C-alpha cells in the first residue's frame, strides 16, 4: 500500500510531461500554456530540454517544482544513461528552475550537476525565492511544494562554454530584457538556440525586465541566425514569424504606453482602461497583458517624452 501511495504522489504530475525529440540527441518537455501556480496543477508550464553529447547531458531549465524535475529525470532514464553534468537555468522564474533539486546526485560519479546561470541570477533568486516557496504552498498541490533552489555556483557575466563531449554549448548572458538575468544556450554547429524567455511562442510575452532592452535583444537574436529556436514557452520553430510576432507585440506595447503617457494618464487609469492593442492569437492575455502594461509604464514614464509637464 505504502509503495502505491508513493508512486501515486510522484507520478501525479507525470501525465503532463513527455520528452519529444526535436533534433538528434536533443529532447524537449514542452510546458502547458498556463501561468505558474495559476491553478493547483500548473507546475510544468515552461519548456525544459535535455541535450546529450558523448560524455554528458545538460538539462536546460528544470520545471516548476521538484516533482516536475523528478518526473523529467525519470523520463530521461530510458533515453540516456549519461550523467547530467550541467543544469543550465535561463533565468530565476519559478517555472524554469524550481525543479533543480530533483537532479541531486545525477552528475558524474553520483555528484550533483553543476548549476549555471547569469551573473545576476543569484541576486534575483535571493530576493524572490522565499516568495516562490510561499506561492507554491498557497496555490499549488502539495506534491509541488518545496524549497527554492540553491543559487548557481557557476555564473556567466558575458559568455561561457560547456563541452558535453563532441558537442559544445555556448552560453550568453544578456543585458536586461525579459528579466535582468537572461541566459541563452546556443548549439552553433547544429543551429539550435535556446532563448529562455527572451522568446515566447503563443504564450503572451511577459515583461519583467526592460522593454526597450528586450526590443534590442530581439534584433540580436535575429542576428544569431539559428535554424531552430526553442522558446521558453511554446513550440520550437524556425526564426522569422515567431520573432516578428513577439516584436510586434512589444512594439505595440511600447507605442500605446508612450501615447498614454503623452496624454498624462496615470498607471491606475491605464490599467483600469487598457489602451486598445491587437492581442489576437496570444494565450494568457488576461493574466499577463495588464502586468506588461504596468511594467512598461514604470519604465517609459522616465523617458524625456513621458514628461507630462
Amino acid at each position: 500500500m505504502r509503495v502505491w501511495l508513493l508512486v501515486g504522489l510522484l507520478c501525479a504530475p507525470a501525465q503532463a510531461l513527455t520528452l519529444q525529440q526535436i533534433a538528434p540527441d536533443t529532447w524537449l518537455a514542452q510546458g502547458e500554456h498556463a501561468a505558474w501556480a495559476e491553478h493547483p496543477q500548473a507546475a510544468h508550464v515552461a519548456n525544459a530540454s535535455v541535450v546529450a553529447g558523448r560524455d554528458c547531458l545538460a538539462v536546460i531549465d528544470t520545471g516548476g517544482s521538484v516533482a516536475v524535475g523528478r518526473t523529467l529525470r525519470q523520463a530521461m532514464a530510458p533515453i540516456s544513461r549519461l550523467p547530467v553534468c550541467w543544469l543550465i537555468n535561463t533565468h530565476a522564474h519559478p517555472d524554469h528552475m524550481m525543479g533543480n533539486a530533483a537532479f541531486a546526485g545525477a552528475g558524474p560519479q553520483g555528484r550533483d550537476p553543476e548549476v549555471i546561470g547569469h551573473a545576476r541570477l543569484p541576486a534575483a533568486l535571493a530576493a524572490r525565492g522565499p516568495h516562490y516557496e510561499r506561492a507554491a504552498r498557497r496555490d499549488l498541490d502539495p506534491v509541488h511544494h518545496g524549497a527554492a533552489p540553491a543559487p548557481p555556483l557557476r555564473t556567466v557575466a558575458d559568455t561561457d562554454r560547456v563541452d558535453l563531449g563532441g558537442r559544445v554549448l555556448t552560453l550568453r548572458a544578456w543585458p536586461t530584457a525579459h528579466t535582468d538575468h537572461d541566459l541563452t544556450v546556443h548549439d552553433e554547429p547544429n543551429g539550435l538556440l535556446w532563448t529562455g524567455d527572451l522568446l515566447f511562442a503563443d504564450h503572451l510575452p511577459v515583461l519583467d525586465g526592460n522593454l526597450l532592452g528586450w526590443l534590442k535583444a530581439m534584433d540580436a537574436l535575429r542576428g544569431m541566425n539559428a535554424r531552430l529556436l526553442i522558446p521558453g514557452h511554446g513550440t520550437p520553430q524556425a526564426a522569422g514569424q515567431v520573432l516578428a510576432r513577439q516584436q510586434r507585440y512589444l512594439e505595440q506595447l511600447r507605442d500605446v504606453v508612450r501615447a498614454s503617457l503623452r496624454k498624462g494618464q496615470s498607471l491606475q487609469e491605464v490599467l483600469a482602461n487598457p489602451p486598445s492593442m491587437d492581442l489576437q492569437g496570444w494565450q494568457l492575455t488576461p493574466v499577463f497583458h495588464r502586468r506588461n502594461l504596468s511594467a512598461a509604464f514604470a519604465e517609459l514614464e522616465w523617458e524625456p517624452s513621458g514628461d507630462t509637464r
Partner: protein
Amino acid sequence: MKRRIVLAATLLPAAPVLAQLKTGDNPEGSERWQKVRASLFAGRDIAGDGDAVARLEVPNRAEDAALMPLAIRAQFPQTPERHIRKVWLIIDNNPSPLSSVFSYTLASGQADIATRVRIDEYTFVRAISETQDGKLHASTRFVKAAGGCSAPPGRDAAAAAASLGRMRLSVIGTAKAQQPLQAQLMVSHPNDSGFVMDQVSRQHTPPHFVRRIDVRYAGELVLSADVDFSISENPNLRFYFTPQKDGELRVQVVDSKELKFEDKLVLRVGD
C-alpha cells in the same frame, strides 16, 4: 511617537509567519490589524463609512506585486466646515503594516492621493481617514498579490545610484485660481526595504527609502507624507493643491539616510 513604535515592532528581520489568507471574508479578524489598531487608534471608534469620506481604490489582484496602483479619493472638497486632516494607509500583511500617513490642509483643495505600493502577501488594505471633527473612517479592500517588498530593484544598482534623487514635478491641466489642480511628483529612488538577503554573506542589504515628502505652494503646506518602503521603487505621487495666485510649488524629499532632495515649479494662474 506611536509610528516609531509600530515600525520598531515590525522591522524585526524575521517577519512573523503569517497564516496565509486566501479570501477577504473577515477584515476585523486580521491579527496584524488588531495590533496596528491598538497602537495607532487605541480607544477610538472607527466608523465603517470610509467609502463616503476617503475611498480606497485598488485592483482586486495586483498585476505586479512590486507596483500596485492605489488611490485614496476624498468624496468632498476641503472646506473649513468639512475636510480631511489625515489619512493612514495600512497594508496588514506587509512587513511594516503602516505604509503611509498623509496630512492635508485646506490649501490641499481635494484630499486625494494616488501612488503605487508593494504588496507582500494576500492582504487587507485600509485607508483610515480623520475628518475635522476628529472622527475616524475606514475604507477597506482585500488584495491578491504577493512578493512585492523584497522584489529586487529593476535596474542595475550602478544606474539606480547614478539617478538617485532625480525628480520630476509637473501639473496636470491648467492652473485656475481657487480650483484644485492635480500635480505629479516622481522621485528616482530604489526605496529599498532591506529585506533582500545576500546568499553568500547572509547579510541583508541596508534599507534605504524615502521617509518624508513635504509639498508647499506659495509657502503654504499642501501635503505632508510620512512614507516607507511599501511605496514602490521610484515613488510616484499624484495629489491636489489649490493655487490662489501665481506661486512656486516646492517639494522637499527626505530619505532614511537623511539625504534631502528638492524640486520646484513656477506656476502662473489664469482667471
